[in-house]
């Protein structure tokens, strides 16, 4: 890799209260540097009014996702050298979500849809009952395990072209959450889950384009989870039960 002193970083500024405009900064280049490091350098050294969001810096909390050169990424785990276009990077707020200011996107629609997809636990027992034993190698458990490491970063939601075309669509993360609960032996209301994902903007709106699976930073597979929900709803339609 050629030696370089500085990176040219273009950041999208503005929001509902200020016009959207790109602003370019020269940022010192280091051997080991993430996109989040670059954004933090700008905020700490060039312009303290730059707004962005992060927390854990180790890829666990899902707070720091942004568009980097037009692609949604978790910025704390994205090395600058992997995404550099020439000597430049463009950073913007997540696609498919309202902008609060600069790089901070409003996550409310994303989490509202999480709830709308019935992404909540329906208990089978009370606190007075013994804890249910779970078979870790059961097929259903394996299906659920495949999706539970989601960190709610909204990268899949931003990558999804169906969300872009259909604002009602629940999106990959919420539907994958519904699929993990559907396969959870400790969930008591599978019909409620299938009802929730069969409505307007439910799993049947998915066109199987697969951007969710392609861009998920944790290498999860929401595309297959959504296909599972489609199969489960079709099976129920023909009278089949799990």
């Amino acid at each position, binding site marked *: 890799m050629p030696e370089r002193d500085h990176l040219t970083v273009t950041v999208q500024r503005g929001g509902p209260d200020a016009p959207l405009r790109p602003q370019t900064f020269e940022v010192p280049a280091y051997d080991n540097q993430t996109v989040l490091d670059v954004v933090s350098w700008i905020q700490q050294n060039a312009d303290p009014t730059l707004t962005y969001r992060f927390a854990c810096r180790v890829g666990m909390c899902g707070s720091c996702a942004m568009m980097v050169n037009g692609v949604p990424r978790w910025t704390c785990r994205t090395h600058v050298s992997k995404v550099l276009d020439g000597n430049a990077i463009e950073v913007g707020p997540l696609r498919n979500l309202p902008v609060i200011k600069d790089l901070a996107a409003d996550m409310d629609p994303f989490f509202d849809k999480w709830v709308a997809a019935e992404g909540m636990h329906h208990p089978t027992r009370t606190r007075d009952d013994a804890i249910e034993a779970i078979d870790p190698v059961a097929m259903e458990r394996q299906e659920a395990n495949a999706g539970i490491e989601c960190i709610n970063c909204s990268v899949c939601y931003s990558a999804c072209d*169906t969300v872009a*075309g*259909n604002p009602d669509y629940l999106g990959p993360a919420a539907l994958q959450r519904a699929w993990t609960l559907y396969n959870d032996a400790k969930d008591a209301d599978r019909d409620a889950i299938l009802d929730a994902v*069969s*409505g*307007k*903007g*439910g799993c*049947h*709106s998915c066109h199987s384009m697969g951007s969710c699976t392609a861009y998920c930073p944790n290498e999860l597979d929401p595309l297959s989870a959504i296909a599972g929900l*489609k199969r489960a*709803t*079709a099976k129920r*339609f023909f009278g089949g039960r799990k």
Partner: protein
Amino acid sequence: MSEFHLYMAQRLSALVMAPFVVVHIGVMIYAIQGGLSAAEILGRTQGSAFWFVFYGLFVVAVSIHAAIGLRTILGEWAGLRGGQRDVISALIGLGLLLLGAQAVWAVTA
């Protein structure tokens, strides 16, 4: 009709159409060998209950399948919402059904 029922109707109509498409194209390729005139086609199809049922069901499946697919495109590409989108796609389905039924009647009656 719910989104889920539209989804099922579109998948089931696709299932119905698949063998129709294969037979339709296969017979065309087979029958066209050595040239074919309109009179020869009509000689085989007119009064044939088989071809009436075959193309009759084909037209019904196409009307359902295409109208539901176009409804999605009208929503995602043209930004139409709610009743407007439903009415336009229903009219498209009805139009396809009428045109197709007229054609089936003309060649098989």
